[in-house]
């Protein structure tokens, strides 16, 4: 598989990507080449028995059922008016986990989600179909390498849940969710990234060494098109004391494409706009043309890129002896900052902005709930992206390619050449509360203005914009869940 680095990425990043790509490509080549028996022999090292040791597996069931309800309060009516719309869904899932032996375990889980599109306003007539969709809650196996009590490596493969920061309730976790070019963020009420639902298809390697923890996550892209690209991420965490921990990570997003042309070099002369048809840079499909100084420099964009992240957690309770008055989550302060893309050449800055426009920064605080609630968390985020949070241009159609260039806000008659930036959605916030009762019931709720994308309204083509696009927009959601 070939990897191409485009633009003017920093040399060290490019070198790292190339090296990682080479290693992973080599691994993949081994797997697919005529040396398959050798690969099987490698597996034999992992599981020494030549004959299958079919031991009985202890099987455990778990499951969850829920009903959820909420309502939107939004002001933007383009392309959809969600104001006042109810959001309602219910679901159930059953999972089976089996411990094969002391080193290996696996899990399979199936669920059904019953939900609906939003109703929009009167024109839809309230004709909202409730539909039931299946999903896989889990389909993975885990293997422990080394000592069973303190394994050297824990490897999980398949469809599994991964969350590098358990403090996040809504805003954050952007190292592994969302795109790079453009830097679209994803969040919402109790999404698969924050509840124990599979959100990664790939491989996860974990090493715990005392106060340090390292994770390598290889994710196969199944959320945003183009699909099936492999991203490789590293997340490290250091628990410096009972009070403070820090983490950092890097994600080589779409490092290994399933189709390099589509993911790394999507340029297509058939679809690219002609110079005379372009009034501003966002009207192009794949390129940026710098005509300064009478020259014409063209930069080709792709969907791949690098994200970096840093986060922290500060819990002052241990400084005061962890009074019993407070719940375990009370008074925690946490935060995360990420940088979406490390290419800062003129073209990238023109389209995606500089550091300030590509750095979402979130801080969260757990108000004291004194045990009445598990947590009462307020998260606030600032993200100065200059473009509108709408992934429409990443959705191809018959006459429209996937484009790594953001949504153009110019009207059809607007001939101004400057990019129309959008800043009314720079600040986001979320207030989330939850209470677990008797260990098996959970009631949770959220008021938020986040990156929730409803997907459009009933009986119309899907859309991909964020519902809350100005500071005055918000929604509330409540959920009752029962689990065992």
């Amino acid at each position: 598989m070939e990897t191409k680095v485009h633009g003017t990425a920093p040399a060290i990043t490019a070198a790292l990507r190339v090296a990682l790509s080479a290693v992973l490509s080599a691994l993949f080549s081994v797997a697919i080449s005529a040396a398959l028996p050798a690969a099987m022999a490698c597996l034999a090292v992992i599981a020494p028995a030549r004959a299958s040791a079919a031991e009985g597996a202890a099987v455990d069931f778990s499951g969850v059922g829920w009903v959820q309800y909420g309502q939107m309060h939004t002001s933007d009516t383009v392309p959809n008016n969600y104001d006042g719309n109810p959001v309602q869904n219910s679901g159930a899932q059953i999972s089976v986990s089996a411990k094969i032996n002391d080193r290996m375990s696996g899990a399979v889980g199936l669920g059904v989600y019953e939900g609906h599109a939003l109703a929009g306003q009167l024109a839809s007539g309230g004709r909202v179909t409730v539909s039931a969709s299946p999903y896989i809650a889990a389909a993975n196996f885990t293997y422990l390498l080394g000592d069973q009590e303190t394994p050297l490596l824990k490897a999980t493969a398949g469809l599994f849940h991964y969350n590098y920061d358990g403090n996040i309730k809504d805003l954050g976790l952007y190292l592994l969710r969302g795109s790079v070019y453009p830097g679209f963020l994803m969040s919402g009420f109790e999404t698969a990234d924050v509840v124990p639902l599979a959100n990664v298809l790939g491989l996860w390697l974990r090493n715990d060494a005392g106060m340090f923890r390292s994770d390598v996550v290889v994710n196969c892209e199944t959320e945003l098109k183009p699909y099936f690209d492999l991203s490789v991420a590293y997340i490290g965490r250091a628990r410096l004391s009972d009070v403070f921990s820090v983490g950092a990570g890097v994600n080589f997003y779409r490092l290994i494409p399933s189709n390099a042309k589509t993911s790394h070099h999507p340029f297509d002369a058939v679809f690219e706009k002609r110079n005379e048809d372009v009034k501003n840079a966002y009207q192009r499909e794949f390129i940026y043309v710098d005509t300064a100084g009478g020259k014409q420099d063209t930069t080709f964009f792709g969907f791949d890129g690098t994200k970096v992240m840093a986060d922290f957690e500060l819990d002052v309770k241990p400084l005061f002896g962890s009074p019993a008055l407070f719940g375990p989550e009370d008074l925690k302060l946490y935060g995360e900052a990420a940088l979406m893309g490390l290419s800062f050449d003129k073209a990238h800055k023109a389209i995606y902005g500089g550091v300030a426009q590509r750095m979402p920064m979130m801080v969260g605080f757990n108000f004291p709930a004194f045990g009445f609630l598990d947590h009462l968390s307020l998260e606030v985020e600032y993200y100065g992206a200059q473009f509108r949070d709408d992934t429409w241009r990443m959705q191809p159609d018959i006459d429209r390619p996937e484009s790594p260039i953001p949504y153009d806000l110019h009207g059809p008659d607007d001939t101004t050449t400057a990019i129309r930036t959008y800043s009314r959605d720079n600040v986001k916030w979320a207030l989330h509360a939850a209470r677990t009762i008797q260990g098996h019931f959970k009631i949770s709720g959220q008021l938020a203005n986040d990156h929730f994308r409803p997907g459009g309204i009933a009986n119309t083509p899907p859309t991909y914009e964020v519902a809350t696009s100005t500071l005055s927009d918000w929604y509330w959601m409540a959920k009752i869940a029962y689990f065992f």
Partner: protein
Amino acid sequence: MHTRTAGFLAIVGLAIAAMTAAVSAGDVTYRITGQGWAETGRIVHATDTLLVNLNGNAMQSAGAQFTAYADIGENWEGAFGIGGYQAHHMQGSGTVSSRSMHFYFKNFITESRMTYFRGDKADPYFSLTFGNFNYDYNPDIKNLGLYLFRGTVYPGFLVSGFMDPTVDQTKGDILGLKMHNVLGKFSQDVIFANERQFPPAFDWSLGYVAKYRPIDGIELGAGFNFYRLLSANSDLTTPDLTEYRTRDSTLTAQGDTHPYDHYYTEGRIDTVRDAANLPIIDTATGKAKVRYVPTTTYTHRGVKVMGMASFDPKKMFGLGGNFGEEDLRLYAECAMIGVQNYGSVYNKPLQRIPVVVGFNIPALRFLDVVSIEAEWYGAAYRNNVSKLTQQKYSELPSPIPVSYNTYDPIKNRGGVDPVTGRLLKDSTDAGGNVIQVPGPIQIRGTALDIENLTQDNWKWSLFMQKTVRQHIRFTAQVANDHFRPQPTHTKYADLDGTGATEFSSSLSDWYYMVRLGYFF
């Protein structure tokens, strides 16, 4: 605060109160139940073939479901489950629909609920259930009945069918809340349910059912349902906006229409007058200005009431012998679908009263139950929800039934000749001009007369079931009921994937279904 929001928050509040008032949790014990089935059947006869011909259409499905029940402590039970089954379009009659139909799988949630109860779990004296659950207030009913919580009010569309979720107690049919209470021989239920099947979606309804067993073998019950008491959008529950009156006013001005042609209102055309009561003349046309004055605004909201009774002579007279547990039970249900008269569409109360009588023929343990049910329902309109569900028939969901316009939305009065009552067809006159003449298909007075349909007033159903070894179940039904088949692939592309129209329009229509299943 929005009334619907209040509704959900009330549920949450009750849930919190119940949970926090409970005793401390013990160990959780859970059990998994499952059910799998394969079924086949056929629509043997369907009179109405104007829009689609379902005669001889085969039906077939296989499905499975799992449900987990967990006991938490002494007073809590949770249940949730998932299922899936094969579904397919109906074949229709033509090759186009037959070749473009395909099989697909559909999922469902069996239940997703929590129940707090006091007393014996099998028969608590109080319980509170919230979530997605099954509610069947009359377990005697196998097919026809249970109309207090299924179907709409205006129009009074009824719902039934083979193993409908309301009858199949392993599947949830209510999203909301239920409070159950038993006081000796008296029991009562309060149901707060969210409408998800028929648009406009998400309205909340409040129902109450009370039952009394004066002596062993007799049970009496009654109930009411304030259907769509809380609106998700009141402009949709009662479409009364001026901007949506155009079609009704035009129809009124035209005259010579049927009440079912209307959409949301009935009214009259008034002359606009000045302070001196003189007509105001439109200078452009020279004619008096007129305006449409609605005299009746129809609504989806309404009140249903229900009465039921069951009589088991075996218990009453101590009959033993070879009778099975279900044998000889006689039961009946009667409901009024909308207590209030409206305009000229809903002005005859007798046409809003379905009456169901059922009897369990003695099967003498050869079968678990053999039930024959008969129903009379005098609604004069066709059980066709197109004006509710499809925008091409009505911009907003209409509380008025379909009219001849369903046959042809373009032609006046659906292309039914007002003199002969036959469907018009294209022809040419002597001058070669295209004209319309009455064709051979008689509409008025037949099972196709959707504006005065009486041939479908009677329904019937024969249901049989046998359980073997406690886990194998054989079920069969032959019926003429309110079954709505899946749409064909080229017509009836309804929004929620189910067909718009009841297959039956006359007494001679019927279908059968046979199911083989196993459960644990």
